[in-house]
């Protein structure tokens, strides 16, 4: 994996659109004719996108120990949103990997995990909020540190869902991609430091038109005493929707039914 310490200069302004082809650096296996866009998200950054059904999002850890906290809503009807308990109990799982689907509260698959080289993504740990961030890392404000200021995952997500008319009431339990939190015999959380290595990749295929909002702030259980959030590469591409013999459909009957319920919206 090459180093992503340096972000390359933008392409020439004489190009029709000044979008760098970041994906060639971290997801070179993608078909150029199908790539829609790509991005390098700095640590602590936040953004949101509407992902159409039949598109896929490759997420790649660009440094060891990345975390990306994501919330998902149906973009057609934002009252319908990712539901952590429904997804966990339907699939009898407390972690996500390839084959699992992220289900809405309406029994539909918003997105399916079609590729995963990391093996474990955390649905339980929640978000780093401003108070916890301050206690753990101290404070760095814009006035003195400009864009190296500390940003909490919760505030990043509140900004992003706010862009789409959603409020703090609508902030849901996120999926913490690239982070591993297991549970011991006593029910205690065990955070695995540095779980995702640089180059580790996970991919979502969207089974519905989906609003995603994310933050690359540290995981709230990360014990590190230094605020050092990691970069994540994103590449969106046209994969097409789940076919009949799709891996996620076949993964569990519950996944097949959730994808079926999503398909019913797009007959």
């Amino acid at each position, binding site marked *: 994996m090459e180093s992503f310490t340096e972000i390359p200069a933008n392409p020439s302004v004489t190009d029709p659109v000044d979008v760098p082809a970041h994906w060639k650096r971290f997801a070179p296996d993608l078909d150029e004719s199908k790539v829609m866009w790509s991005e390098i998200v700095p640590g602590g950054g936040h953004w949101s996108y509407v992902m159409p059904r039949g598109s896929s999002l490759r997420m790649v850890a660009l440094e060891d120990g990345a975390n990306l906290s994501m919330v998902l809503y149906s973009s057609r009807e934002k009252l319908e949103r990712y539901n952590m*308990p429904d997804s*966990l109990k339907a699939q*009898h799982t*407390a972690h996500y990997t390839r084959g699992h689907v992220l289900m809405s509260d*309406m*029994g539909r698959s918003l997105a399916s995990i079609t590729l995963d080289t990391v093996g474990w993504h955390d649905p339980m740990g929640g978000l780093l*909020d401003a108070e916890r961030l301050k206690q753990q890392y101290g404070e760095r404000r814009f006035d003195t540190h400009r864009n190296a200021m500390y940003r909490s995952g919760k505030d990043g997500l509140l900004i992003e869902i706010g862009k789409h008319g959603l409020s703090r009431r609508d902030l849901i*339990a996120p999926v913490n991609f690239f982070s591993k939190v297991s549970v011991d015999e006593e029910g205690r*959380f065990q955070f695995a430091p540095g779980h995702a290595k640089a180059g580790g990749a996970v991919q979502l295929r969207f089974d519905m038109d989906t609003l995603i909002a994310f933050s690359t702030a540290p995981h709230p259980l990360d014990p590190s005493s230094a605020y050092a959030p990691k970069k994540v590469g994103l590449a969106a591409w046209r994969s097409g929707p789940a076919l009949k013999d799709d891996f996620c459909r076949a993964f569990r009957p519950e996944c097949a039914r959730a994808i079926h319920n999503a398909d019913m919206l797009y007959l």
Partner: protein
Amino acid sequence: MTAIRLQESALQAERAVLNHKLPSGEPYLQTIKQGQTLRIVDLEGNQAVDVIFYNAQDPAEHYSATDTMLSQGGIYLTTGTVLMSSEARPMLTIVADTCGRHDTLGGACAAESNTVRYALQKKFMHSCRDNYLIALQHADIGLGKRDLVPNVNFFMNVPVTPDGGLKFEDGVSGPGKYVELRAEMDILMLVSNCPQLNNPCNAYNPTPAQFLIWD
């Protein structure tokens, strides 16, 4: 089984200011004042009582499963657990518990999730989220589906395995077991006494629950 903290209560039922028996499969909306103590009794055993708590003064602030788990660093709710809000503030504290384990990962059943979990044809069966919605529609207090956040399942045992699996075990509860919570703020409590008939965790037999409140 570990991580169970049993604690009995000295409170006497005849001194309670409220004593409400909730049949199985029905909703219940009730306020609890700061400082009051709420007892929920599993009258016949292994019933799931699905509860969401709101700040009665500002219902946009609601119970948060993730903040509660993060705050105590673990998933099981029992004596000593502080139920946290979406603003990471204490809502209620579990002060007595003769069951010893309650769940906050399993969520509340819905017609739609039943189609996923059991069969597409299950969609017309009664569910907790139907209960929640009818209670909120009748109350007409500005709360709706967006406020149906991950809840507490009192008396349910949902262990997570070391390899990240989720299991629905036989309940650890039994007839007459109870849990008591002290309200740390004025609380609006939304309950569904779970009508799930597809899950062996309640022996396919939903049963009544009792609610008592003391000043």
